[in-house]
């Protein structure tokens, strides 16, 4: 009996992954047209960002309103490589000659001609930036709303910086007109399908990784830090490092998502990075259930789909709906739709980790007296 309950969650998880793989690899390509499948590919990219936010925000309490920055870093790293590859060795991307009037490739572009470097950069660059900022910010115990506002300001600053360097970044246009993906022609629907499969596989892989992280001792510690950072400190941990790991991992995921978004959609631009897209990444996570594993994924896909479907017919209504989702879900159902599922299904494999309750505040009052 006991063996069964212990084995159960693991078995269930693998069944779940199997089912997910079946839906993503068999059902979706069979049922959807090329156009719809390419839309799904785009949504799955947002879902990858959402997985990271779920870890950092749902489990770690780090409301990052600047994931667009990391999404953008990954996207630009990938797009820079693809633009260089399109242009061919020794040539400059088209827009540079047009807008930049540069005679030669800027030095910081050059390494991206190397596919290995560019691929590594899509993940490592965002992680590095997150590490730098996170170290500074968490070490000094900047947290909660302060952290949220700072991460938002970072997104704003990044957009201004990118737009200002039009000659080398494409400015507001971003990097567009990307034809090839490591030698494969992106105009060919078959290759678009390949891109979709890669994105789906990456999403499944990252879900597995995140599941492991959430169930590991680190995952428990992360929840502990979220609920009572000071208490964790008194146990001999440095909460800054615990948070840093979640933040950096989430940044890496966003970077990877950005990198995959480029071949799927064929564009990366500052419009995907700023304050508004960054906060829109969060809405899907909130709706789906911030602390659950699958909640953010399903939430992100559902919200992106609803946006496409509804904004076509009722652009104004969509804005109301989006606002209402923030208000209703966050205020009255902080666990998201996943918590409804949890209520229906009494038993849980892992202890629930719902909305952060401010254990810290009780503690603060406590030591204050």
């Amino acid at each position: 009996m006991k063996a069964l309950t212990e084995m159960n969650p693991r078995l269930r998880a693998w069944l779940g992954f199997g089912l997910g793989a079946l839906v993503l690899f068999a059902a979706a390509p069979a049922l959807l047209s090329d156009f719809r499948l390419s839309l799904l590919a785009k949504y799955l990219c947002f879902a990858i960002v959402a997985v990271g936010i779920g870890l950092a925000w749902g489990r770690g309490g780090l409301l990052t309103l600047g994931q667009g920055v990391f999404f953008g870093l990954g996207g630009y790293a990938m797009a820079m490589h693809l633009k260089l590859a399109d242009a061919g060795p020794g040539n400059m991307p088209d827009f540079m000659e047009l807008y930049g009037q540069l005679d030669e490739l800027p030095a910081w572009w050059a390494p991206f001609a190397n596919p290995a470097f560019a691929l590594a950069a899509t993940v490592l660059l965002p992680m590095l930036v997150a590490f730098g900022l996170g170290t500074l910010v968490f070490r000094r115990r900047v947290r909660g709303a302060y952290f949220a506002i700072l991460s938002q300001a970072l997104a704003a600053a990044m957009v201004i910086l990118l737009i200002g360097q039009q000659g080398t970044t494409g400015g507001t246009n971003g990097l567009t007109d990307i034809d090839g993906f490591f030698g494969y022609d992106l105009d060919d629907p078959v290759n678009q399908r390949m891109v979709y499969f890669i994105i789906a596989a990456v999403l499944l892989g990252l879900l597995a990784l995140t599941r492991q992280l959430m169930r590991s001792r680190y995952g428990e510690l992360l929840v502990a830090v979220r609920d009572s950072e000071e208490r964790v400190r008194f146990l001999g941990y440095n909460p800054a490092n615990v948070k840093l790991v979640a933040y950096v991992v989430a940044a890496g995921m966003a970077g990877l998502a950005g990198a995959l978004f480029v071949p799927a959609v064929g564009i990366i631009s500052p419009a995907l990075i700023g304050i508004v897209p960054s906060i829109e990444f969060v809405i899907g996570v909130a709706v789906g259930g911030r602390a659950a594993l699958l909640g953010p994924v399903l939430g992100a896909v559902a919200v992106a789909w609803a946006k496409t479907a509804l904004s076509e017919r009722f652009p104004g209504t969509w804005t109301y709906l989006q606002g209402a989702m923030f208000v209703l879900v966050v205020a009255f159902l902080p666990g998201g739709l996943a918590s409804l599922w949890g209520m229906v299904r009494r038993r849980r494999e892992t202890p629930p980790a719902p909305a952060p309750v401010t254990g810290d505040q009780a503690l603060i009052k406590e030591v204050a007296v």
Partner: protein
Amino acid sequence: MLRLHRRGLMAGSVALAAALALSACGAKTGENETAGGVTADTSGDTVKVGLLNSLSGTMAISEVTVRDAILLAVEEINAAGGVLGKKIEPISEDGASDWPTFAEKAEKLIKVDRVAAVFGCWTSASRKAVKPVFEENKALLFYPVQYEGLEQSPYIFYTGATTNQQIVPGLDYLKAQGKKSVYLVGSDYVFPRTANKIIKAYAEANGLKVLGEDYAPLGSTEFGTIVNKVKTAKADAVFNTLNGDSNVAFFKEYKSAGLTAAAMPVVSVSIAEEEVKSIGTQYLAGQLTAWNYYQTTTGPANDKFVKAYKAKYGADKPTSDPMEAAYTAVYLWKAMVEKAGSFEVEKVKGASDGVTFEAPEGLVTVDGATQHIHKTARIGKIGDDGLITEVWNSGSPVKPDPYLKGYPWATGLS
């Protein structure tokens, strides 16, 4: 047992993913493409066209008016019997002021709705985002907004002004007025930066001094420093390529700093009748604009257009240059299709050269080589009533020259 099971499942899914990914590999870059584009669905008794404008987000303010103008043209054409005997069925999509969304919706219009042509886009960024989509699928886009030139896609018709039909005439006008120096103020994006590059090249060749160049991030509303710089530079005129909200803040600051249209006029290229309304004539009266069309432009075609527009959308709604260009675009497409006798993209393109239309702005002619149109350049002065009246025009339509090949001073720009 369990471990075995896990490994097996893991290996299975990895193998599945790998097999699918490998089997899915298609054409390599450089190989002959098999895809020949999507053909429009014209089988029924209607023909679909796409309207691709931002109906939400920051650009909705401008783009909704363009969509309204396109719908007006469609309605008029349908009332007159349609195109090649088929009624036009407009399908409107929201670009949501977001460039990837534009690309996505363009793809939907082409592949799912199989429209014969798409009208829309406003910002250069949205055009750049959809350009590869139209080229890949060999579908047509009519782009109705003045832009920075330096582009010539085989699948886009540009019915707004290119630089030699708006910016260069604006500079010519300033020069003719005896202005010796200018100050450049613009929003930080592609159009102003490219425009200012052209202005600097022109200035160098024409003895005009550029005393300063400043950019504000899109949406920026703090112009204290920039106006202070403009003021101390004491230029003869300001060339303004600011976009959107920034114009409001700029002109309020400009007036408050004691700068006047008489002493230091501002030539704007993004302020049309709609924008005048939202900034207020209190701040704008006497300032100059460069366009190809004003609501006050004379001629029976414009009288009819303005009357029809106001009848459909309200008497307080002004008409403006981009709206006129969008309205004209639909009629030009109709003329091309009728000349070609077919909705087929390649045939329509082939028939385009020399197609004319008596537009509200006057006679326009399609230049088949560049797929731009011949347009008359006009400088206008903003009046106390919020309308813009023409103070100068180029006399006859100016031949489009997107790469400024006909201007010796512009060599090296493109």
